[in-house]
Structure formats: C-alpha cells, structure tokens
C-alpha cells in the first residue's frame, strides 16, 4: 500500500455545520472518502491509502483541483482507495464536501 | 487417532456407536450415565441428507432429556458441493444441525466437539464449531480452504502464502492456527484415556462463548474480543 498526505490552506472554512460524512465504497475502481470537521477553519488535509503505487503526482493534482474548487477549510479528509480513476476521485471528493455543507 | 481407537478410549466397556454413509451415531456408558456421539467420519462431505439425520439424532437426545452430554466427532470434508444440495436448501439443513446442537446445549446437554481429522467450511461450522467447547487430537487438520485454493482466489504466489502462513495464524489452515484463533480450546493427549479428558472438558465448560478471549490471548485473533466488547459497551437504544 502507498500512503500519501497533502496539506492545503484555504481562504475560508467550508460552510455548514456537519461534523462528519462518508461517501463511496472501497471496491475495484471506487474509493471511500471520510470527511471530518476537526481542523482549524482555513486548513485542509487529505490522507490517502492506495494499492496502486506511483501515482502521487496525479493524486496531488486531483487534490489541489478539489481544494481550489471546494475551499474545504477545516476538513480532515481520509481516503481508502480501491484503484479509482481521477475523475471518480474528484466526483467523490466534491460529493463529500457537499454532504458536509448541510 | 482413528475413530475406532477414539471410541475404544472413550468407552472401554463398549458402546453402540455405528457408522453409516460416513455418519457417526450412537452412545456409550459415561460417568454412570451415557455419552451420546454424533459425527462424520472418513473425510465425508456433509450434504442435506446427512445434516438432516444428524440433527434428528441430536433432537432425540434432547427429547430424552437427562442432561446427556453430546460428543460431536469430526473427520469430514467441507459441505457437499452439488447442485442438488443447494437446490434443496443446504444452508437450512446445515443451520438446522447447528441449531439443534445449540439448543441441546441450552437444554443442559453439554456439547463437546472433537476434531480428529479434516473438516472445512460449512461442515465445520454446522458441527464441531456449533458445540460449547471444541477440542482436537494431534494430526487433525481443520481448514477453511487449502493454501493452493487460497492462492488461486487471492492471486498470490503459493510460496509467498506458505511463508506468510508461518506467522499469520489468522488465515492459514491447520489445527494449531484454529487453536490460536480460539476456535479449538485444547488439543487432547492421544496416549491418555479420552473418557477422562472429555470428562475434564465437560467439568470445565466455560459459561459464555469465550473463543474471542482465547483468540486474543493466543494471538490468533488480536482484536475481535475488544471490538465485540466495544460494541456491547457503546450500543444504546435511542
């Protein structure tokens, strides 16, 4: 398994009050994303465990794009990956952020 | 040990245990009363017909009452793998057999499993694993799946699996690993009278299902006990 970890600063906290959400399932081509509102309001971390090695740069780009779009300040995001494609990862991350905005 | 030797060691004064189609059934004198014996011999697969017969035998013992202990002696294959067995609802027959053993136990009939040969998968769960205490004899070989099959399913090389099996009791076949998992409480000594050893097992029956505690103590299931206990602690009706 490969472990990746990214830390970002955002310009705002993600709106909403939901403390925690989970979306997706660990399965072939899929992933699960756990989101927890436990960080200072303008910080965001994304930790990933994936069985597919050597795609750190792709993950870095997908995560950076997500952070720019969602501004998920305050969230600790943890991913168990089952070998999802980048578009699936993006979709799941945005879904997760939306669940937290309730 | 062979079944004949086991029965001789259990019942030095003789017994009425018979074997037909690989199914063991009968009883013998035991501590001033009787010890009922059911089981599977000769690496026989357990199908709907066999499970139904064994369950009937267990219910007969329960109906007669008197707290007669039941020994479940096992040297079986896995469940019988066939279209007919599944068509007829093998899951119900195996579950029913397990339930009769659990009911017997609840009705004051101590149930002891004795694995002396092979057993696997559904046959193992429906018989030996459905007793209050399961013990083994040296040479017994319980398994969920043999390593070559595990290699096929997990797509891992056999030699790597064999290496992993040495220090990972959670998945590797064999009696020692089932002891470490807590499923098998103890391994008996074939050179001592089995009657005395089974009597001692019955006298020391655990009150609750403590297989997960044994699994933690022996390192074969490091976290199961703790996880189950946490659920009990944290669950609340709302």
């Amino acid at each position, binding site marked *: 398994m490969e472990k990746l970890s990214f830390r970002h600063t955002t310009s705002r906290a993600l709106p909403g009050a939901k403390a925690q959400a989970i979306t997706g399932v660990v399965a072939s081509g899929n992933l699960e994303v756990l989101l927890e509102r436990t960080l200072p309001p303008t910080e965001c971390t994304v930790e990933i465990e994936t069985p597919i090695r050597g795609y750190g740069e792709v993950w870095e780009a997908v995560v950076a794009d997500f952070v720019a779009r969602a501004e998920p300040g305050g969230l600790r995001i943890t991913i168990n990956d089952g070998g999802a494609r980048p578009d699936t990862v993006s979709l799941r991350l945005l879904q997760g952020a939306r669940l937290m905005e309730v | 040990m062979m079944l004949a030797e086991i029965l001789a060691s259990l019942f030095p004064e003789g017994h009425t245990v018979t074997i037909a189609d690989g199914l063991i059934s009968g009883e013998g004198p035991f501590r001033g009363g009787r010890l009922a014996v059911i089981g599977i011999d000769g690496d026989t697969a357990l199908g709907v017909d066999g499970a139904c017969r064994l369950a009937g035998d267990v219910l007969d013992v329960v*109906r007669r009452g008197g707290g007669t202990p039941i020994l479940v002696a096992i040297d079986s294959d896995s469940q019988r793998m066939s279209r007919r067995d599944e068509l007829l609802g093998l899951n119900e027959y195996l579950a029913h057999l397990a339930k009769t053993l659990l009911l017997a136990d609840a009705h004051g009939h101590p149930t002891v499993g004795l694995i002396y040969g092979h057993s696997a998968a559904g046959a193992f769960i429906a018989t030996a694993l459905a007793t209050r205490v399961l013990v083994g004899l040296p040479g017994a070989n319980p398994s969920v799946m043999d390593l070559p099959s595990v290699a096929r399913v997990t797509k891992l090389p056999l030699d790597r699996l064999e290496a992993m099996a040495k220090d990972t009791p959670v998945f590797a076949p064999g009696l020692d690993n089932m002891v470490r998992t807590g499923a098998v409480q103890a391994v008996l000594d074939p050179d001592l009278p089995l009657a005395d050893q089974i009597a001692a097992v019955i006298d020391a029956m655990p009150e609750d299902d403590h297989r997960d505690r044994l699994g933690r103590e022996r390192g*074969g299931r490091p976290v199961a006990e703790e996880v189950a206990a946490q659920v009990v602690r944290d669950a609340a009706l709302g």
Partner: protein
Amino acid sequence: MNERIIDLAARGEGRGWATSWYEASARARIDGLLDAGSFREVIGPEQRRMSPHLPLFDLPRAFDDGMIVGSGRLDGSAVLVAAQEGRFMGGAFGEIHGAKLVGLLRAALKLKPAAVLILFDTGGVRLQEANAGETAIAEVMRAIMRVRAAGVPVIGLIGGRAGAYGGGGLIAGTCSRLVVSEGGRISVSGPEVIETNKGAEEFDSRDRALVWRTMGGKHRRLTGGADAYADDTIEAFRQAALDQIGRAPAFDLATLEAEQRRLEERLVRFGDCRDATEIWGQLGVNDPESVPALTTADFETLLVSLGETTHDAR
C-alpha cells in the same frame, strides 16, 4: 471505471424509498430502512477500526471493515441493525467485520430491542482472514440462538449483490425470519465454487437463469427457505421487516422439531428433483417455467394460491 456510482449520497437525496436495495450501499440501505435520522452507528468510520490483516496482502481496507452496526428506530420501535457492504471484499467475514456483528448480538441480550435486523450481503468467509471469519460465524450463530431464546426476533434481509453465501447462508438459516428479493440469493456453495470443484456439468456458473432458480429469492420463498418476498426497493424491505417482526417463531424444542419434520419432508418430496421447476410443479405451480418472470404481485398471488409456503418451523 466500470463501477456505477449510484448511492443515495451521489444523488444528494435524503430518503430514497424507491431506491433499489440491490444497487444501494449498505449505509443507504440502513438510512432508508430505519425511521429518518434515527440511526446511531457504533464504532463509526471515524474510529478507523480497520482490518489489521489486509495490509499483509497489500489490499485496501475500509473504515468500517464492510460491517456497519448500530441502533435506530423502525416505525417507532427501537431496533439494532447490522449491514454488510457487499462491494467491499464481497461482504466477506473478516475478524473485525464478524466481531462487530457478534458484539451487536451480545448487546441485544442486554438491551432487548424490538428486533435485530441483519442486512446480509456476503460471499462468506474472507479468505485472507479465514480462521477469524469462520470462528466469528460460529460465534454469531451461537449469539443469535441466545438472542432468539431471550425472545428478541432476529430478522434477516437478503437482496444484495453478494447474496448470502457460505457461512452467511448458515447464519441466515439461524434467523427467526428471512425477507428475500428476486436478486437475493441464499446458498452455501456458490455457483463458481461448485463449478471449480465439481465441473461445469455439475453446475454451469455462467448459466444465470440456473443460478437464480436454484438459489434465488423466488425459489427460496416457494420452498420455505425464506418467509417473505419483497420488491427490490428499500421501502419494500422496510415494510416486510415490519411485518415479520411480530411473527417471529420462538427458539425452542418444538420449533426445531417442526423444522426437522419440515426439512425431512422436503427431502422426501423433492429429493429426486433435478431442477427447481420440477419442485415448483410438485408444489402445485401450474406453469413453473413462468415463475422467474412473474411480477411481485403475481408471485404473491401464486404464493397465496399454494397456501403452504408459510411456516413457523425455523
């Protein structure tokens, strides 16, 4: 990406009652099954109680190990609920996966809920944790017996993509009542397992029609292997679960003697049948070939006309 992403969260819906049970995730099933917002998970994903064994095999883990347990309300009544996620490792029983269900059943002895609901979706034992999974299944069956003996119904709901296979089929057989849908399969050896071990002449696993009529929900319901047949929606499973809770048989000698007679009779009546359609014909179904295509409503009508498929012998 072959996996279709269709769970409730993906649709952003709060309640998806018309949602397919088969397609829904385990969490979506629980959310739709219980009264809105009533589910309280125990050992939630934030506790990261993940398998200590899967990393040895270089396999990804899930936060909940594929088993979600907790409490909630069903039409106002307090229940305990467990759901397997069939897409994670085929819903198979590993050490933590199994221990969570064992713990839930032990909690039921203490809490005395109106029922314990088990949402099966499993291929059986997780081979990477085979000994732990197999032992856990034995522990679950013992715990179910104790819960039932204490008067708490244990209701199994089967309609997931992984079915209820292997040890899952055995656990299902110990439940007080079973609800099954068309897509729910209950069996010990799966089609592939039989074919691998005994050859395609014994069981052609690619013959999906054969799989459904040998192990599928309709066959199990017709022969008494399940007690209720539900449409493949979360709402239908909710209604069926509610109906079954009040009808749970006791766990005692009389029940098991009745089950013994029921199973012996099945062997006598159908032991020589080579195909499910023969059994259905002997049950009194006029046109056995038409059964797989029957709608739920027509299938219910058929069940009523047969009049002997409901029993308390479980």
